[in-house]
């Protein structure tokens, strides 16, 4: 298992949201501003990496019958730690994400990776898997946030970027974002649940289109290569 392959899998070919199609609740619920998206993505990335490492480290000593229960306890532990830290140091993020931080416990991405990957792999591989899968998740969140925020209220980077006194990043969620067009012309419905469903649906369609096209291209190239080889044989 090499790192480059894992990177590609996490971000594109085995992306947790777009390809594995899991962990969709939070994906649709919180992607209204870039601040929420980046915050949620990084929280999941940290929790996923920690859980992956721990699960992989203890994989040989835990009995198979109760492995799921143990995974859940480990995950709940890390989630609570992140929850407490956010409440203490980034309260704005904690109140913006609300119940979706503790709900990371039942996010299938984490338990799914523990079950499918970390049980069989070394700690180092699991560490990178956590980072890349987490990055894949974060990228999807960011894409959705950018799209929904732009169409919905004509903004970019709400909460995270502040341009009133020159460009700077705000960690307390107060940044006003960059207004690209007046928010009156935005489709406010994109900030509502409807926008979440539609955006994720479209994103998945684009992904499937790209993957299918890629697969077709590959198949064509293989066939061409095979034909060329066959021709060559005939020539000889």
């Amino acid at each position, binding site marked *: 298992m090499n790192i480059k392959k894992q990177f590609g899998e996490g971000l594109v070919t085995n992306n947790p949201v777009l390809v594995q*199609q*899991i*962990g*969709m*609740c*939070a994906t*649709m*619920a919180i992607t209204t501003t870039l601040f929420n998206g980046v915050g949620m993505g990084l929280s999941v990335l940290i929790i996923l990496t920690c859980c992956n490492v721990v699960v992989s480290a203890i994989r040989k000593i835990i009995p198979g019958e109760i492995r799921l*229960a143990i995974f*859940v*306890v480990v995950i*709940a*532990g890390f*989630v*609570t730690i992140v*929850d*407490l830290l956010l409440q203490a140091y980034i309260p704005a993020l904690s109140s913006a994400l*609300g*119940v979706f931080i*503790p*709900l990371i*416990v*039942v*996010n*299938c991405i984490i*338990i799914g990776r523990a079950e499918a990957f970390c049980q069989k792999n070394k700690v180092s591989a699991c560490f990178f898997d956590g980072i890349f899968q987490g990055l894949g998740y974060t990228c999807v969140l960011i894409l959705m946030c950018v799209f929904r925020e732009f169409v919905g209220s004509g903004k970019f980077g709400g909460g995270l970027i502040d341009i009133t006194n020159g460009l700077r990043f705000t960690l307390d969620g107060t940044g006003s974002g960059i207004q690209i067009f007046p928010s009156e012309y935005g489709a406010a*419905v994109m900030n*509502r*649940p*409807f*926008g*979440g*469903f*539609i955006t*994720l*649906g*479209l994103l*998945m*369609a*684009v992904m*499937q*289109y790209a993957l*299918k096209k890629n697969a077709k291209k590959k198949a064509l190239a293989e066939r061409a290569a095979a034909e060329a080889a066959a021709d060559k044989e005939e020539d000889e």
Partner: protein
Amino acid sequence: MLTNILAISLGAILTNNFIFSQFLGICPFLGCSSKVDTATGMGLAVVFVMGLASAICWVIDTYILIPLGLAFLETLAFILVIASLVQFVEMFLKKSVPSLYSALGIYLPLITTNCAVLGVVLLNVQNHYNFIESVVYGITGGLGFMLAIVLFASVRERIEFAEYPECFEGFSICLISAGLVALAFMGFSGMKIF
């Protein structure tokens, strides 16, 4: 008191529907909605477990965790309670009510990772509901989930005969149709609740 309970129920079923406005329980919603029968089964199981989990977790939170100052263990305790509750209900139904077990049995294990169940318990704590309000919120939240999943299953049965671009196949077209149903549910948000 009564108006409060009515407000909670209407809110949980229509205006703040778990699926269409709070995004809780999307995975089983998409996974189990291909047929109306399975959707009904899943919905019933969720109503059952959400009601029970709300009651038990309220008791544990109020009489054990908060008096001991262990409120930070809420998430951990709740998920363990839900997981063991689901196991227990499954065993109990198998032994005592086999007819109900054969109807709900296969859906029960899936419920542990249904974020609507953990979500409703956490929301009960967040909204400072008392025992009755918690149970009502749990049951009506489950009913809202059931309404959503059954409605959507009927929509999906029609999608099968629809023509759409190839790349929208699978969850993609489902999400977009779910978005349209959510748009319809948005109509309820203008509704006055007392």
